[in-house]
């Protein structure tokens, strides 16, 4: 036991001290946050600054209809502007009616205009025409607008669980998919790390030196647990960093949204009654905090550890039977990767119906349960299913570790040739 502890410590410390670990741990959350912030920033900033467009309205048809509002395009009805002097007059573009077709306008710009600019000019003109038609048939625009607004959000539907909390299907979907995909990725990353560690021991020829001091099983288990601890450390640091960053992010939200959130939390009934008064973002934040986070994070850690233990011993076994050639490792890794990928496919194709048969079996069978169960967890599956899934995962990793230990024991000392599946089976069932 003491020896396993020494091995765990070495595996853990050498990896945690590694620069790549530090970089990926601290940079990744920052990169993600920057990425999100950056894409929001860009989507806001993507429209160019206000453009002044000269409009040659010879028929005087549009002048009373087109009103300059807050949009990025400002129409200026300047009768003196033409295609030759509009830039001199300080305009960014010049719009005039095409002579050949009266429904066709031309936008002249020094450089090619963006698609947004042309389509927004087009929209403005069409809108003006629509308003003109409406008013001609006696319907005022303000009346139509109020009608449209009222009818589009007059009725609303919310889903409530038996605990009277609002269920947000979209959010469940996002949390399930997000945590499922995270388990999927970490399983590959840390499983492959175990495999590379075993291969390193084998190619560096230290395996035999080690097994003259410790039992091969101890060596394998020490490596798996050490790397598992590295993975857990990284995930916990990510969770902490992410929550710190998200708290920091809420500080930048407008204060009226936060007070609305508080209102919803204090009085859940409000969320459905006064829909119109509450902004969508306030409802979203309230829903996020309505989820059972301790349960989700707890299960996430359990399924990460369980799934890691289940698969990493198989990865260790593969690492022990291959030699220097990484291609050998790839061909042997495939049968291990298949169920992981399969689990991901089950998850992504059935996420809309978290209680169907595929999801149920996928979340019970240990080969896919870490990924699939995480997809279901935000919809609170029945307790007995969760318990069954956990028990079968524990049983599963005990079995794979036992089996991998047998293969590892022989494989780690074999040099020169790759073992076949038949040989590995033989090693497994030998005493």
């Amino acid at each position, binding site marked *: 036991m003491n*020896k396993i502890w*020494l*091995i765990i410590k*070495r595996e853990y410390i*050498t990896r945690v001290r590694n620069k790549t670990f530090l970089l990926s741990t601290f940079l990744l959350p920052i990169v993600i946050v920057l990425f999100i912030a950056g894409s929001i920033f860009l989507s806001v900033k993507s429209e160019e600054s206000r453009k002044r467009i000269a409009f040659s309205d010879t028929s005087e048809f549009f002048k009373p209809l087109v009103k300059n509002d807050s949009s990025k395009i400002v129409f200026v009805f300047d009768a003196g502007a033409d295609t030759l002097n509009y830039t001199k007059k300080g305009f960014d573009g010049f719009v005039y009616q095409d002579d050949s077709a009266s429904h066709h306008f031309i936008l002249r710009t020094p450089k090619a205009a963006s698609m947004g600019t042309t389509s927004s000019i087009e929209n403005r003109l069409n809108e003006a025409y629509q308003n003109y038609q409406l008013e001609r048939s006696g319907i005022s625009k303000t009346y139509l607008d109020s009608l449209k607004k009222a009818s589009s959000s007059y009725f609303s539907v919310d889903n409530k669980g038996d605990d009277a909390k609002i269920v947000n299907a979209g959010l469940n979907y996002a949390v399930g998919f997000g945590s499922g995909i995270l388990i999927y990725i970490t399983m590959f990353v840390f499983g492959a790390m175990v495999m590379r560690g075993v291969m*390193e021991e084998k190619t*560096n*020829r*230290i395996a*035999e*030196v*080690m*097994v*003259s*001091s*410790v*039992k091969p099983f101890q060596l394998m288990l020490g490596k798996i647990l050490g790397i598992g601890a590295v993975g857990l450390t990284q995930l916990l640091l990510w969770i902490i960093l992410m929550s710190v960053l998200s708290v920091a992010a809420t500080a930048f939200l407008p204060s009226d949204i936060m007070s609305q959130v508080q209102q919803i939390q204090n009085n859940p009934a409000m969320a459905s009654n006064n829909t119109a008064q509450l902004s969508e973002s306030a409802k979203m934040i309230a829903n996020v905090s309505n989820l059972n986070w301790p349960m989700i994070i707890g299960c996430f850690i359990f399924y990460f550890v369980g799934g890691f233990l289940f698969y990493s011993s198989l990865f260790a076994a593969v690492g022990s039977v291959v030699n220097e050639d990484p291609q050998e490792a790839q061909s042997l890794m495939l049968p291990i990767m298949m169920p992981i990928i399969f689990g991901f496919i089950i998850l992504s194709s059935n996420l809309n119906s978290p209680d169907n048969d595929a999801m149920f079996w996928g979340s019970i069978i240990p080969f896919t349960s870490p990924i699939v169960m995480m997809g279901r967890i935000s919809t609170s599956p029945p307790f007995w299913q969760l318990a069954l899934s956990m028990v079968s995962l524990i049983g599963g990793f005990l079995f794979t570790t036992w089996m991998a230990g047998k293969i590892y024991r022989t494989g780690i*000392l074999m*040099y020169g040739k790759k073992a076949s599946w038949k*040989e590995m089976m*033989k090693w497994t069932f030998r005493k």
Partner: protein
Amino acid sequence: MNILELQNLKKYFATQKAVDDISFNIAQGDIFGLLGPNGAGKTTLLRMITGIFYPDSGEVVFNGRKFDPINDTAYIGYMPEERGLYKKMKIGEQAVYLAQLKGLSKAEAMTKIKAWFVKFEMESWWNKKVEDLSKGMSQKLQFVTTVLHEPKLIILDEPFSGLDPVNANLIKDEIFKLAQNGSTIIFSTHRMEQVEEICNHIVLVNKGKKILDGTVKQVKQDFKENMYRIGASIAAEDIQHPAFEVIKHNPEELLLKLSAGTKTNDVLQYFISKNITVNTFSEVLPSLNEIFIKLVEGTKTARQFQEI
């Protein structure tokens, strides 16, 4: 007292009888040579002694008791032929780690490692990584980590491969010192001149079976062919006697093979009677190399796969 007794050890692999009923004893303080051609089963035998493999049948008795791999490995230092170290680890940390796995406390390990590093002039290496070392340097480090925990039984598989003569001598001297201090050393190699120089007891295995067992002196006696070297300047034609046969004739030296029952004095008498001045006269014992080749020759050099 025997530190190690092997009793009818057998280990069969799928296609080979790697070790097929081998027994021998090693006395405490011996420098023991385990010899054999490639693929004879030496490594398998050593792996059973170190507890890496379990024998299919037979028993290993260590220090008077049945070998218990979990506890007894602390008393064994094994330097396998396929050896290496963690490349990315610092040398000092690596040595401490390996010593701790052998049951030493950290403080104990530190003092011992420092003493060895001073002895081998390796003090400046502590914070270097293994990947920075040359092959010879890492070989020295490997030797230090093998003997650091003062094992009762030290097993060295081809310990001098990759070492220059100076460093090889350094290690050789340490091996002698360890043996003097009561450690037993098993030395596996197919370099016979090293065996002759270092070992006092040898066992030769071939094809999984023991074919020779004894002290180096005894083995040489057993395989001697009554060859004598006589130093005298004579012409070959002159020498003829039923008691011996001239094998080789050099200008100043003759190599004679005495026929059975002949005494050395008879030969000398003959030379004296011929009035030839004898400068030297000595027995020629076969080298281990010759014995090895003689015993192993004739069997197929490459081991064949067999059904069992």
